[in-house]
C-alpha cells in the first residue's frame, strides 16, 4: 500500500513543477524561435537572430538592463539607509503610536497605483525629477519601504537588547555597540529585506512608466513595448534577461545565508 504512494506523490510534484516551469519553458522556446506559427506545436525554425537584434548596438536591451540594475541597486541602498534607523527606532525606542507609524508605510499601497503615480509624475515634473534615474529610484523606494521597514523592524526586535547593553557596559558608545553587536545579528533579516526590495524594483512597471519613460528605459518597459507590438521573441528574450539578475541575486544571498546565519532567522 505504502509502496504505491509514490504515484500520487509523483503526479502532484510533476504538476507543481509544470506550473512553475511550464511558462518558463514556453519563454525559452520563444526566445530561440525564428518562425512559430499557429498549428505547429513547436517552432519550425530555430536561431539566434532575435538575440542579435536585442543586443545590437542600436537595440535598447543593454541600456534597459543597465538602467534596471542601477535603479534596483540604488533603491536597495536608499531603502536600507532609511529602514535601518527606522526599523531600529521602531523596535527599540518607546515610541508612542508604533502601530500607526508601521501602518503609515502601507498608505502608498492603499490607493490604486495608477492614481498615485500619475500624481507623483506631475509633482516630479515640477522638480525636474521626471525622466531621471533619481526620480525612478524615489518612486521604487516609496514602494519598497513597506517591505524593508517592516522586515527591518522585525529583524531588530528579534535581537536581544542585553547584548547591546553588554557592549555599552564594556565601554562601547551607542553607535559602536549597534555596529558591533546589533547590526550583525539583524543582518539576515536586513538581507531578506534587500532581496525583496531588489526584486520588487526590478519588475516594477507603473511607476517606472509614468516617472521614467521615455527617457529612462527599463526592462519591464522594453518587455511591454515588445509584447504590445506582438514581437514575442524580443519580449521573451527581455523576460529572460529580467530573470538573470534575480537568480544571480538569489545565489549571492544563498552564499551569505549559510547554515549558522539561517539557523538564527527562525529563532
Amino acid at each position, binding site marked *: 500500500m505504502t509502496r504505491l504512494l509514490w504515484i500520487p506523490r509523483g503526479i502532484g510534484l510533476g504538476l507543481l513543477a509544470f506550473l512553475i516551469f511550464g511558462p518558463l519553458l514556453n519563454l525559452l522556446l520563444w526566445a530561440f524561435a525564428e518562425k512559430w506559427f499557429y498549428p505547429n506545436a513547436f517552432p519550425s525554425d530555430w536561431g539566434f537572430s532575435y538575440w542579435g537584434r536585442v543586443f545590437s548596438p542600436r537595440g535598447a536591451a543593454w541600456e534597459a538592463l543597465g538602467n534596471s540594475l542601477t535603479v534596483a541597486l540604488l533603491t536597495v541602498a536608499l531603502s536600507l539607509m532609511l529602514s535601518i534607523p527606522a526599523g531600529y527606532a521602531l523596535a527599540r525606542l518607546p515610541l508612542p503610536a508604533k502601530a500607526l507609524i508601521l501602518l503609515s508605510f502601507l498608505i502608498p499601497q492603499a490607493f490604486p497605483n495608477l492614481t498615485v503615480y500619475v500624481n507623483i509624475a506631475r509633482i516630479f515634473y515640477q522638480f525636474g525629477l521626471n525622466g531621471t534615474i533619481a526620480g525612478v529610484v524615489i518612486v521604487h523606494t516609496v514602494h519598497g519601504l513597506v517591505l524593508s521597514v517592516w522586515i527591518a523592524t522585525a529583524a531588530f526586535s528579534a535581537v536581544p537588547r542585553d547584548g547591546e547593553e553588554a557592549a555599552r557596559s564594556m565601554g562601547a558608545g*551607542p553607535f559602536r555597540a549597534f555596529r558591533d553587536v546589533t547590526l550583525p545579528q539583524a543582518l539576515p533579516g536586513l538581507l531578506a529585506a534587500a532581496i525583496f526590495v531588489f526584486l520588487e524594483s526590478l519588475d516594477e512597471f507603473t511607476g517606472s512608466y509614468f516617472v521614467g519613460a521615455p527617457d529612462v528605459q527599463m526592462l519591464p518597459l522594453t518587455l511591454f513595448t515588445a509584447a504590445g507590438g506582438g514581437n514575442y521573441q524580443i519580449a521573451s528574450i527581455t523576460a529572460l534577461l529580467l530573470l538573470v539578475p534575480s537568480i544571480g541575486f538569489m545565489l549571492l544571498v544563498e552564499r551569505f545565508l549559510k547554515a549558522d546565519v539561517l539557523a538564527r532567522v527562525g529563532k
Partner: protein
Amino acid sequence: MQERDHLSVEGLQAGYGAGLVLKGIDLAVPKGQFVALLGSSGCGKTTLLRSIAGFETPRAGRILRDGAEITALPPDRRGMSMVFQSYALWPHKTVAQHIGYGLALRGLPRAEIAARVAEVLAMLGLAGLEGRKPAALSGGQRQRVALGRALAVRPDILLLDEPLSNLDARIRLQLRGEIRALQQALGITAIHVTHDREEAMVMADRIVILDQGVIRQDGSPEEIYNRPNSGFVAAFMGAENLLALEAVAGDGGVRLPASEWNRALPLPGLRPGPVEARFRAEAAVLQPVDAPEAAPGVLSLFGRVTGCSYPGGCWRLSLRIGQAQVEALAPMPHVPGSAVRLDVPPAQLFLFAAPADGRGDTHGPRTVPEPQPQRSFR
C-alpha cells in the same frame, strides 16, 4: 568618610510609568567590598543595579563614584562592568572576541590583547575554547565567558545581575566560590543582585535586603542572619515559623503569660501589646512533654505533631501550637498526633512588636486556620 566610599547612592528614586520601583535608596560601598542586594522578585534590586550601571535613568537622587557624580553619565563612561542574568553573549563572536572586546575598545595593541585574553581564559578555565561561539558552549562555560568579558578590562566595580540563577545547582555552587575568590584576589568592588539567601550569605561581605523599593536591613551576613531587625527580614532569612503573642505588663516587667500551649517568659525590651515571634525550624529543640523545665529565657511551647517527612539528615516535623502551624527538625520520627514540647533558645527567638495598625507588611503575621497535615517542603 566620604572619600573612602568607592560607590555611593543617595536618595535614589526610580520607576516605570506611574509607579515608583525605588523609593529612596541610600547606599555607600567602600572599595573592595562584596555587596549582595537580596530580595524577592519585584523588590527593585535589579532596577537599583541597572541604575548604578546607567541603564535606567533615576527620577531623583544621585550616584557617586569616588565622590564624583556620575548620575547622568552614559553606561559606557562609568567604568563598571556588568554581568547579565542571561549572560548577554553575542552569537556571532567567538570566546576570544568576547573577552578581548573591551580591550580592543580601549585601543590596546593586538599582542597585549592576545596576552590578556589568554590570561583571562586560563584564570577561568576556558583555555582551548577561544575559537568557539556561544552556541557551542555549556551553561557554565557561557557564564564564565560573560564573567571573563567583564573582568578582562580590569574594572574597579563589577555589577552582577543574578549571574548564577540559570545554572545547574552543582555548577552554581562551584561558580559561587570562583567568583568570590576572583573578587577578593583582584580587589574589585562588587554589587551582586540575587534572590538566593544562601548565595548572598556565602558570597557577600555585606547584605542589603530590599523590599518594595526600600532597604529593610543592611549589614554583615552574620548580623542579618542572627539579628534581623524586622519580621520581614527574619522571614526572608528563613525564620518562617511565626507565633502571634501578646505581651502584658506584670510585676517584674513585661512578660508573656503562660497559656495552654506555652510557659511564661519574661520579655525585656518589649512594650505590652501584640508581639510577633519568629524562629527557624532548626533553632527549635524538640523535647518530650515531661522533660525537665528549660533554662531561663527559653521559650517552651506545647503542641501536637501533624506531619512528619524525611528530607535527609533530620526528620522534618509539622506541629500545631495553639492556632499556629510551625516546623521543627528532629533526630527521630514522630507519629502524627503525639504531644511534644518545643524549646526555642533566646538567641534564636526573634521578637518584634507587631504593627499597631494590624496590617503590617505583606509577609507579616499570618494565622493558619486549619491544620495542614501534609505540607510540601522545598
